[in-house]
């Protein structure tokens, strides 16, 4: 579904992502792990088409992101690490805006907003301006906006930050349900326990280079993901 091939991104002289290749299949929850500044966010932003890259290719369902950006973007949803949403809108206006852009019919959007907002406990706050939302509420709204158009691929940057335990649990459920329906999820996280329990596959990145990837078993073997991650970090130093 998402194929990243030999991706390289430089900021001036600094190489942020160096010849990175990943392949995410339908049904996969794919975790992306690395220390701060390793290149996770840059990779995610490149994969959703909001950051230009120097070389390599990114395809979504076989469509090249550079040559077919709109068709690719129509298939995906993105939740950034800090959900800077439109604070001048109310929650419901924001969701309607997203639904309009993704051409979701009124009946479908109404049903999905009802279902998702009820699940995440945000229904009573939908008429409030987003500027009055807490970080967690913004995160929940971003999740509803991401799910509202039933995308094939969802990319998330540290999605569990700011969520309460119940919402975290719900998000994990929603991620699994999405992949069971044939969708795919690619997300970055620092919470290794979550990654270990939730992900089908995982990739570890350091200083822009992929240092290990594969199924959870292939990556960690009999150790914990935390042990493997720390070991790999030390080896590369």
């Amino acid at each position, binding site marked *: 579904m998402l194929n990243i091939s030999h991706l390289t991104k*430089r*900021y*001036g002289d600094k190489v942020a992502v160096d010849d990175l290749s990943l392949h995410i299949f339908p049904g996969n929850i794919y975790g992306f792990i690395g220390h701060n500044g390793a290149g996770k966010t840059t990779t995610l*932003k490149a994969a*959703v*088409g*909001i950051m*230009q890259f120097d070389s390599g290719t990114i395809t979504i369902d076989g469509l090249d992101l550079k040559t077919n950006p*709109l*068709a690719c*973007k*129509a298939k*995906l949803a*993105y939740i*950034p690490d*800090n959900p*800077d*949403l*439109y*604070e*001048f*809108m*109310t*929650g*419901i*206006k924001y969701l*309607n*805006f*997203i*639904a*309009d*852009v*993704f*051409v979701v*019919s*009124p*009946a479908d*959007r*109404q049903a999905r*907003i*009802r279902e998702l907002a009820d699940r995440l406990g945000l*229904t*009573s*706050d*939908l*008429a*409030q*301006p987003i*500027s*009055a939302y807490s970080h967690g509420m913004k995160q929940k709204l971003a999740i509803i906006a991401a799910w509202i158009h039933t995308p094939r691929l969802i990319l998330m940057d540290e999605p569990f930050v700011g969520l309460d335990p119940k919402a975290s649990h719900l998000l994990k459920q929603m991620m699994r349900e999405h992949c069971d329906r044939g969708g795919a999820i690619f997300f970055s996280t620092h919470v290794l326990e979550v990654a270990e329990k939730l992900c089908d596959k995982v990739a570890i990145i350091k200083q822009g280079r992929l240092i290990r990837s594969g199924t959870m078993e292939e990556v960690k073997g009999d150790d914990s993901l935390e042990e493997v991650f720390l070991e790999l970090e030390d080896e590369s130093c």
Partner: protein
Amino acid sequence: MLKTLIKKQITETLALTFRKGAARWTVTGGRGKNSGIGTVVVMALAMLYIAGMFTYFSVNLCNSMMAVKMGWMYYLVTSGSAILFGTFGNIFSTGFTLYMAKDNDLLLSMPIKIRDVIISRLFVVFFMGLLYSGIVSVPAIVVGWVIGGFSFPRVICGLMLVILVSLIVLGLSCLLGFVVAKISQKLKNRSFLTVLIALAFLALICFFYFRILNRGQDLMYIMVRVGEDIRGSAYPIYLFGRIGEGDWLAMLAWVAALALLLGLIWLLLKKTFLSISTATPSPKKAIYKEKAGSQRSVSSALLRKEWYRFSSSANYMLNCGMALLLLLGFGGYLLVKGGTLLNIMSALGSSFHGVAPVLLCALNCMLIGMVDISAPSVSLEGRSIWQVQCLPVTPWQVLRAKLLLHLGISAVPMLFFSVVLMVLAPASAVEKVLMLVVTVLYAILFGLFGLFLGLKMPNLNWTNEIVPIKQNAAVLISMFSGMGLAMAFGGLYFLLGKVLGATAWLSISALVFLALDAALFFWLKGPGARRFAAL
């Protein structure tokens, strides 16, 4: 600690105003160079331009008032103008700087005295007030020295007057900023209400101004009469004017009075700062009622998003849409008092053929060129720009929505004023149609030009929306270019009009504006859209 906080405030203000690290990365991959220098130059030119206008006003007023031995009245009028200019320019930023700064929570959670936080914020408010009021008061004082003569008391007291004016601006800004912050806490549609209050304030000034003019008396005679009244019944105000003339006692009296007033304002701020700056700005929780919405097209959704952005901000509406109110106001005034204009234009037309339609069209263009809604719209995306960049919409669709908002909001006031001018102008039918064509092309030009500037000088890292709306080179350049080009269009007619005539001049201008429209349109669709995608 206070020194560190003031340093932080200055660094933040300068960095945001002069675009240090404004866009995340430029299209070419590196941070933009020399952009700060460019902004400084633009800001300096804009300030010189405004200061020049006030110098011209001051010279005329000073000569007249000194001739009737009422120099104090000159200083009173110019200082009053400086206080008005400074307070109006500072009022909204004060509320944001003091109470709504995004780092309030961070600073208040640290072991820092609240007093230090307030003083460091007030330092910026004072500096901005000094900047705004100084544009008026400094030229006025210098003109006063040149015309009235230099002396030690006049120089010292003159300088003190500049400082006292900026301190009054500080006090008024704090009081009004406090009121704005209180309104923001309690009301639902506060942006519209704030606009209404500001407009009511302006309408009041205009009302008194026109009342004085309508008395049909000589302005100088009125000023002398008012001056005598002030001296007789409002002695402290008379003393304020006396400061400029080098009256030590007047200066000391005002320093003492102002110290007392600022002390009281300080107590008010200190007492209320914590409760206002940490309050949740949600007066009454709106209740969500599920209802079936309608399906909108992508273009319509993007346009609505731009409208929500515009209508949610009193700063945006007042600073970038004020000229639209001038169009409506002047249009309405001309409907009532059109006869006077008709007489002036007929007299002008008899001495210089065709000058009436060109000058009226230039006036319309100048006002429409001052509308700068599109100029800050790119920067206003701020940190949420990722949103439109990852949606399945083209950059051009986003830019087009910004342009359509600019033109859509401008359309009715522009057409209203155009129709009034077309009815009043002593011109042929062809000239009248050309007046409208030129105005429409000019409005499109400055909608496009604003976007062009916004893309060339983006500032996405602001923490206070005042920065992209007011302290932004793109907005200043757009506004002054809009005025300047219209003046050139009208002024050049006096050079070339005798040869060409009004019809030819309006046609040539229309063609020039059309060519500029086309050039900017294609730039925005191509390189401009790519630049937006890469922001």
